[in-house]
C-alpha cells in the first residue's frame, strides 16, 4: 500500500520535472507516459499594457483551465522579455473564478514582453499558447478622467470667471439667507442685554473644510462684535483651531480700530475629547447665559446637547453644518439653521466682498449644470428605454459617459 503510494508520487514528481524541463517546447500532451491525465491548459490569454501608469505594469488575464473546478494546484505565470527565454514570475492559487487576472509590476518601461500561463495539478503541468508581445508604455495624462477634467474646468472656471466679473465691478444679485440676515440682529440683542455671544466652531480640526468655513464666518462675526462693542466667547476643542481663531479675531478687532479691546482668552482650549468638551461648553452656557449661540462647523452627537441647553437658557441660536445626520436636531431646536451648502456660502455672503459673492454665483453655475444634466440625461434615457427611440441614443450615451468615473 505504502509502496504503491510512493511509487505514484514519484511518477508525479518525475512527470512534473519532465514537463517543466520541456516547458519551452510548448508541447501539450493530454496524457503522459504513465497514464496520468494532464490538466487542460488555460485559454484566452489577454495581455495589455496597464493604462495610464508609469510604464512599469502589464496586465494579464486568462480564462481558467476547464479542470479548475475539479481541483488544481494553481497557475504559473511565465514571462519572456523580447526574444528571451520564459521565466516564472508568479504563482497564482486557484480561487474558483471563471477568469483570472494578474498585474505584473516588475517590468521595465519600453521593453516588450510575452507571457505564458501554465496550470498545475496532480496530473502535471500544461501550458497555454504564448501571448502576443506587449510593451510597457507610459501615458502622461489619465484619459479615463477626461470627463472629470472637463466638468472640473467648467465649474472651477465659472467660479473664477465670476470672481473676476465681480472684481471688474459688475453687481451680482445674491438672495437673502435668513439665518445670516438674523446674525447682526442677534449680535445687537446680545449687546443690549450685556451678555456674551458664544461661538462654537464644531469639534473637528483645521483639516476639515467645515471648520475652515466656520473660521471664515468668525472673521465676519467678530468684526460685527467689535463694531458693536459686544463680547465674544469661544471655547474650542482643538489647539490648532484655538491659535487660528485667536489670530482671526485679533485681526477683526484691528480692522475695526479697537485692538485694545482684544484679549487672548476670548478663545480658549478645553480638550480634544468630544464629550469632555461638550460638558465644559454646557457649563459655560448655564453659567454665563450667552444671549446668542452660534454653532457653525462640523458637529456630531453633541449637536443635540448643545441645542437643548441653548433652548433651555433662552438664547437665540443660529446653527450651520454640512453633516446631514445632525441637521435635524439643529432644525428642531434652533431659530435658524444653515443647511449644507449655505454654511460654505455664509462667509462669502457675510463679507459682502464682490469677489467672494462671485464665487457663489459660480457655484450656482455648477448647480445649473447639474440640474440641466439631470433633466436632459433623464429624459434621453427614458425616451430611449421606453420607446426604443434610437435617435436619442447618442445623447444618453454622452450623458452617461460624461458623468462616469471609471
Amino acid at each position, binding site marked *: 500500500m505504502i509502496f504503491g503510494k510512493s511509487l505514484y508520487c514519484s511518477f508525479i514528481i518525475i512527470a512534473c520535472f519532465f514537463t517543466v524541463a520541456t516547458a519551452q517546447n510548448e508541447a501539450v500532451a493530454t496524457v503522459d507516459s504513465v497514464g496520468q491525465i494532464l490538466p487542460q491548459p488555460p485559454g484566452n490569454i489577454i495581455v495589455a499594457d496597464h493604462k495610464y501608469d508609469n510604464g512599469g505594469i502589464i496586465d494579464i488575464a486568462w480564462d481558467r483551465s476547464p479542470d479548475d473546478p475539479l481541483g488544481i494546484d494553481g497557475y504559473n505565470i511565465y514571462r519572456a522579455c523580447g526574444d528571451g527565454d520564459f521565466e516564472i514570475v508568479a504563482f497564482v492559487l486557484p480561487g474558483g473564478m471563471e477568469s483570472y487576472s494578474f498585474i505584473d509590476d516588475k517590468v521595465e518601461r519600453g521593453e516588450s514582453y510575452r507571457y505564458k500561463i501554465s496550470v498545475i495539478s496532480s496530473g502535471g503541468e500544461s501550458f497555454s499558447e504564448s501571448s502576443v508581445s506587449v510593451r510597457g508604455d507610459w501615458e502622461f495624462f489619465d484619459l479615463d478622467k477626461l470627463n472629470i477634467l472637463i466638468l472640473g474646468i467648467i465649474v472651477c472656471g465659472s467660479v473664477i470667471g465670476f470672481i473676476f466679473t465681480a472684481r471688474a465691478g459688475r453687481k451680482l444679485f445674491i438672495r437673502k439667507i435668513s439665518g445670516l440676515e438674523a446674525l447682526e440682529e442677534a449680535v445687537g440683542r446680545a449687546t443690549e442685554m450685556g451678555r456674551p455671544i458664544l461661538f462654537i466652531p464644531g469639534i473637528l480640526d483645521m483639516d*476639515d473644510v467645515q471648520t475652515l468655513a466656520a473660521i471664515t464666518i468668525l472673521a465676519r462675526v467678530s468684526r460685527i462684535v467689535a463694531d458693536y462693542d459686544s463680547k465674544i466667547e469661544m471655547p474650542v476643542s482643538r489647539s490648532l483651531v484655538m491659535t487660528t481663531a485667536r489670530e482671526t479675531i485679533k485681526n477683526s478687532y484691528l480692522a475695526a480700530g479697537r485692538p485694545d479691546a482684544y484679549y487672548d482668552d476670548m478663545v480658549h482650549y478645553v480638550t480634544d475629547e468630544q464629550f469632555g468638551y461638550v460638558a465644559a461648553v454646557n457649563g459655560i452656557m448655564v453659567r454665563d447665559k450667552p444671549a446668542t449661540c452660534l454653532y457653525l462647523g462640523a458637529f456630531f452627537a453633541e449637536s443635540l446637547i448643545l441645542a437643548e441647553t441653548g433652548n433651555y437658557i433662552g438664547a437665540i441660536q443660529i446653527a450651520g453644518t454640512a453633516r446631514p445626520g445632525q441637521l435635524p436636531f439643529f432644525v428642531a431646536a434652533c431659530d435658524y439653521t444653515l443647511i449644507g451648502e449655505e454654511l460654505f456660502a455664509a462667509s462669502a455672503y457675510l463679507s459682502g466682498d464682490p469677489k467672494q459673492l462671485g464665487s457663489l454665483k459660480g457655484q450656482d453655475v455648477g448647480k445649473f449644470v*447639474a440640474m440641466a444634466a439631470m433633466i436632459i440625461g*433623464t429624459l434621453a434615457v427614458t425616451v430611449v428605454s421606453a420607446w426604443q427611440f434610437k435617435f436619442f441614443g447618442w445623447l444618453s450615451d454622452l450623458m452617461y459617459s460624461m458623468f462616469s468615473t471609471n
Partner: protein
Amino acid sequence: MGFWEQFGIWLAALFTIGIISFLYKDNVLYKACEAIFVGVSAGYWFVVYYWDMLYKKFYQQVTDPVNPEWYPWLGVILGVLMLTRLSNKIGWLSRWPLAFVVGATAGLYMMVYFVSNAIVQIQGTIVPLAEGTAGDIIANILVAAGTFCGLIYFFFSKEHRGAFGGAAKIGIWFLMITFGASFGYTVMSRMSLMIGRIDFLFGRWLELIP
C-alpha cells in the same frame, strides 16, 4: 477569570454608574469620572499619535535598514515649526505647517467630493423614469424631482419667488423628510448604545441577563 479581569469589570461598572449618575444630578462621582476621562483620553491619543505617527511614519521609515527614506524629515521640520506656537516671537512660523495642512485638505477634498458627491450622484439620478411597476415609476420621478427641487433651494443668485420659489419650497420639504429619517436613525443609534451599556452592567457584571 483572573484577578485583573475581574477587577477590570468592577472598575468599568463603577465608571459606567458614575457617568449615568449625572442623569440625576451633577455629583462628585460624575466629576471624578469626567476628570479621569479627560486625562485618560488625552493620554491615550498622545500615546497613539506617538507610536502610530512619529514612530511608524518617521522613525521606522528613516532608519529602515534596506532603503531608508529621506522625505519624512521634511514632515518633522513642519511639525517642529508647529511647536513655534509656544513662542510669541517666532510663532508666526507655525503658519507654514498650517498652510500645508489647509492646502492638502483643500486639494484632496476638492477632487474627492467633486467626483463622489457631485458627478457620481448626478449620474445616479440619470435613470430611465418609465421602467418597472407603477410604484417604481413614481419613486423614480420623485427622486429626480426631489433632487432637482432640493438643488433649487440652494440657488443663491435668484430670489425664491413665483414658480422658482414654489420649487424651492418643495425642495425644503424633501430636505425636512430627509432630516426626519436621519432623526429616526439617530434615535435608533443612541438607544443601541445604551442597550450595550445595560448589557454590560446587568449581563457581564451582575450576570442577571440570561
